[in-house]
């Protein structure tokens, strides 16, 4: 039921929501998260581009596992994950998560869960090119581990 896409092409949020909900009258709420490239971070040089590398053989498997876990935890009526790879400029879309359910709480919680788990369990790596000419791999954030750990089952 879930739609999982990994590729270099941009996505159209409106079209993805339309595809998820087409012909459905049992959905009460759709949660959505769009991650975008930003060029500014406090105390860091300006970012001029981001390049996303991934581990293709593992990516689909990891995303399917994350979606399956969300479907196990919440009564979802549809789910979409689109993650771009390759080079992107500030302002461009990186990732889209959609979760549809009869009730808004399930839709919103599943959306937060999907992006939190994706950030810590799916094999993507960001390399940034900076306006000062330097470049480097983005380091994992402890805040992301903490966000993902919120969803651990007792």
């Amino acid at each position: 039921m879930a739609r999982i896409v990994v590729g270099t092409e941009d996505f159209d949020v409106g079209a993805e929501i339309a595809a998820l909900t087409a012909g459905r009258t049992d959905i009460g709420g759709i949660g959505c998260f769009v991650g975008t490239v930003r060029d500014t971070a406090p105390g860091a040089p300006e970012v001029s581009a981001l390049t996303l590398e991934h581990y293709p053989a593992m990516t689909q498997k990891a995303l399917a596992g994350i979606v399956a876990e969300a479907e196990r935890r919440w009564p979802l009526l549809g789910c979409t994950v689109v993650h771009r790879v390759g080079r992107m400029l500030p302002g461009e879309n990186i990732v889209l998560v959609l979760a549809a359910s009869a009730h808004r709480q399930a839709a919103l919680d599943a959306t937060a869960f999907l992006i939190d788990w994706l950030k810590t369990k799916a094999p993507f790596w960001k390399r940034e090119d900076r306006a000062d000419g330097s470049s480097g791999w983005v380091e994992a954030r402890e805040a992301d581990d903490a966000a993902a750990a919120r969803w651990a089952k007792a």
Partner: protein
Amino acid sequence: MIDVLYFAWLRERTGLAEERIALPAGTTTVADLIEMLAARHAAAFANRQTIRCAVNQEFADPSVVLHPGDEVAFFPPVTGG
């Protein structure tokens, strides 16, 4: 033989996207493999705390036992999303 894949700065520091490694006789764990690879790629494996491993596309602990034909990947903590 096993296939070993490197991603992100592990690919850059080893200078390799992939290499084939012969498993030694006896039981070999992910931790044993890291010791073998560190001898070849000292700079890449200098800080093992920042290295993650997947065996056959699943995250794997150092204690996981390897078998011929496995695909073993090494990479930094993921930063997608």
